[in-house]
């Protein structure tokens, strides 16, 4: 049975949602009374615009896009939290009422009390929670802290509790907003185990995340949102690749925000990055035409990694990508999780820095192969300011050479015409 034969789980037709943000944030009666005649002044934000897609039963679908692209708004509409302004949303089946982990948790209550409260929001009955109580606590590895107040828990403990409770939900359609954004590596592995189980059980999952590697690993399909519009709907690999290109190559700079700093599967990670001058000292103010070395180190965390490539972009502060450079690292160094090959340093030398004065950054990404999913992408791994002693305008010093050839005859060509017009 192919996906297209399965029943519809979610159908979204021509969905639009706009938010009216009052320009004057005063929310008092006095203000309303004083301005009852004049229409309130609002800035309208088109959070979602004419969105159409379907999700079939048992599909695992990822929604990606930069912050503010409308991902969470879309998820909240699917969860009945927001109402659409236009269009139709049809949902077949029971939707999980949770978007994030730990909704309803109260720090003053104990782990036990929080399980019953938060479990009630999830739709679990009291008897059922009693029956599964040991399982929930066991999965969260919190057996000794059952009657401690949540405020005394570490954030890791709290997340484990929230997650082990959330996976008890009976919903046929699970909506998850950035559940992967929290927790350490071992917790993320637990998340992935549960995702695998959901896939086996044929549950429908809609996952909003910044972890592109998770999308390629678990989602059959992905939707890419950009400023409230659905710009791509296709296989997870294609759509994440498109998104990665978009954030890497955006010329207007609007898509490189401080919020997207780092993502990837972390099988290989960047452990450090610096910029050095001729004398081998760290220097973030190189001069145009001077010797500059960009140096960064990596570490392989997953034994299975046998090859990887690094990509480095020089980016101007406003997002303009000045250049891109590749190095298939595994062709030049022994790669493996053995003592010798598990980490190393990569250098990129610029004998005459070709950049003119301005603020720049270095983005680094480690991949299995060129254009494969990121092991580790670090946005602005190094930020630096180039000083040009000649104070020229522009971006690059292309290293061209000038020459002037004086003409011997006054009769020859345009200089005369030029002279006659004066």
């Amino acid at each position, binding site marked *: 049975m192919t996906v297209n034969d399965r029943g519809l789980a979610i159908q979204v037709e021509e969905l639009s949602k706009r*938010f009216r943000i009052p320009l004057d944030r005063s*929310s*008092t*009666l*006095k203000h*309303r009374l004083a301005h009852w005649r004049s229409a309130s002044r609002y800035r309208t934000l088109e959070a979602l615009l004419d969105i159409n897609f379907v999700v079939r039963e048992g599909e695992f679908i990822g929604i990606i896009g930069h912050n503010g692209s409308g991902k969470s708004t879309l998820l*909240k509409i699917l*969860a*009945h*939290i*927001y*109402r659409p302004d236009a269009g139709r949303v*049809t*949902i077949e089946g*029971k*939707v999980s*009422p*949770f*978007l*994030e982990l730990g*909704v*309803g948790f*109260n720090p*003053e*209550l104990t782990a036990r*009390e929080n399980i*019953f*409260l938060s479990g*009630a*929001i999830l*739709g679990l*009955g*009291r008897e059922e929670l009693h029956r599964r109580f040991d399982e929930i606590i066991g999965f969260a590895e919190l057996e000794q802290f059952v009657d401690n107040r949540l405020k005394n828990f570490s954030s890791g403990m709290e997340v484990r509790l929230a997650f082990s409770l959330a996976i008890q939900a009976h919903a046929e359609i699970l909506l998850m907003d950035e559940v992967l954004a929290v927790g350490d590596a071992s917790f993320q592995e637990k998340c992935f185990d549960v995702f695998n189980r959901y896939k086996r059980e044929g549950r429908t999952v809609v996952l909003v995340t910044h972890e592109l590697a998770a999308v390629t690993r678990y989602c059959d399909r992905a939707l890419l949102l950009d400023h409230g519009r659905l710009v791509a709907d296709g296989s997870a690999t294609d759509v994440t690749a498109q998104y990665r290109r978009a954030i890497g190559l955006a010329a207007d700079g609007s898509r490189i925000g401080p919020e997207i700093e780092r993502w990837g599967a972390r099988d290989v990670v960047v452990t450090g990055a610096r910029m050095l001058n001729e004398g081998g000292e760290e220097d973030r103010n190189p001069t145009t035409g001077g010797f500059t070395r960009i140096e960064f180190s990596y570490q392989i965390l997953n034994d299975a990694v046998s090859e990887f490539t690094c990509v480095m972009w020089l980016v101007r502060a406003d997002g303009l990508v000045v250049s891109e450079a590749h190095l298939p690292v595994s062709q030049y160094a022994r790669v493996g999780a053995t003592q010798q090959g598990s980490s190393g340093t990569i250098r990129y030398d610029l004998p005459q820095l070709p950049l003119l004065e301005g603020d720049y950054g270095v983005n680094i990404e480690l991949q299995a192969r060129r254009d494969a999913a990121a092991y580790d992408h670090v946005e602005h791994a190094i930020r630096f300011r180039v000083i040009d002693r000649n104070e020229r305008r522009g971006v690059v010093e292309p290293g061209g050479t000038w020459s002037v050839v004086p003409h011997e005859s006054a009769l020859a060509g345009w200089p005369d015409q030029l002279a006659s017009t004066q």
Partner: protein
Amino acid sequence: MSSSAEALAPGDASASQLSSFRHYRHLTLELAVSQFKLRYTRSLLGYFWSLLKPAMIFAITYFIFVDLFKINDGTEFYGIQLLLGIVVWTFFAECTASSMQAIAGNSGLIRKAYFPRSILVIAASFSSLFTFLINLVIVFIIAVGLHQIDVGLRIVMVIPLLVELYLLALGVSLFLSALFVQFHDVGHLWDVLMQLLFYGSGVMFSLTYVLQRVHLAGAQVAGHGPHDVWIVEIMATNPIMQTIEDLRHALLTPVAPWTELVMSGHLAAVNQYGALDTPWLVPAPFLVVAVIFAVGALTFRSRARSFAENL
């Protein structure tokens, strides 16, 4: 009560499919229990505060009015009637004050999980209701201990009276909590209004006592009929006054007459100043409750869909 939660849910086809009566009843109780627990965390006396507070307010009121000013409504059961009035008033005041914050104070829940929003208000009111019921039992026990009680079949009327009082408190709470999301002024305005309501609800004096005082004052000043009876007539439409008075009659002593009798003039024979002759006012308190509940529920319903966006 949970059925009203269903009715008030921002409804659409899929939402009602997903809503199950049992689930929301369970959620309401779970929220109410947690709120009750939370209200008394970080305090040494814990739950005892819910009992101690009305007792202390009673002690102060009794000391000032009875011991100091020698004011008394002339009945032998004044003390216990005052206590009952204070307990009812405390319920109404605490229920509306805490329910008002039920939406604005749970923005995290509202923005991240779906369930009928009215559940939050109902849960907050339940936690006050629970305290109130315990207090009522204690008032009853004290009354028995002091022999200031005359138990009769009238006591069955306590249940419809409590339902009436609760519907009033819930209606006001729904209205206030919905408006409070956008207009915090509502909180200040309500504080002031509560001060006025306190004096207009017969917490300290019965309706007949107020009527007597008005007649006496009128007689002293003008030598003829009272001018201020209209104030008493307005007070008589106040459902809080009516429930307090009727609870006194039903739970404690027949000496305190049914408000219905006071209003309809049937008591005139007993006490020439103790009654109004306004039978048309008899249904007024019930109408007020019905209107307030309807307005509260409709206001809440129409605003509930935008809570998540406005918080």
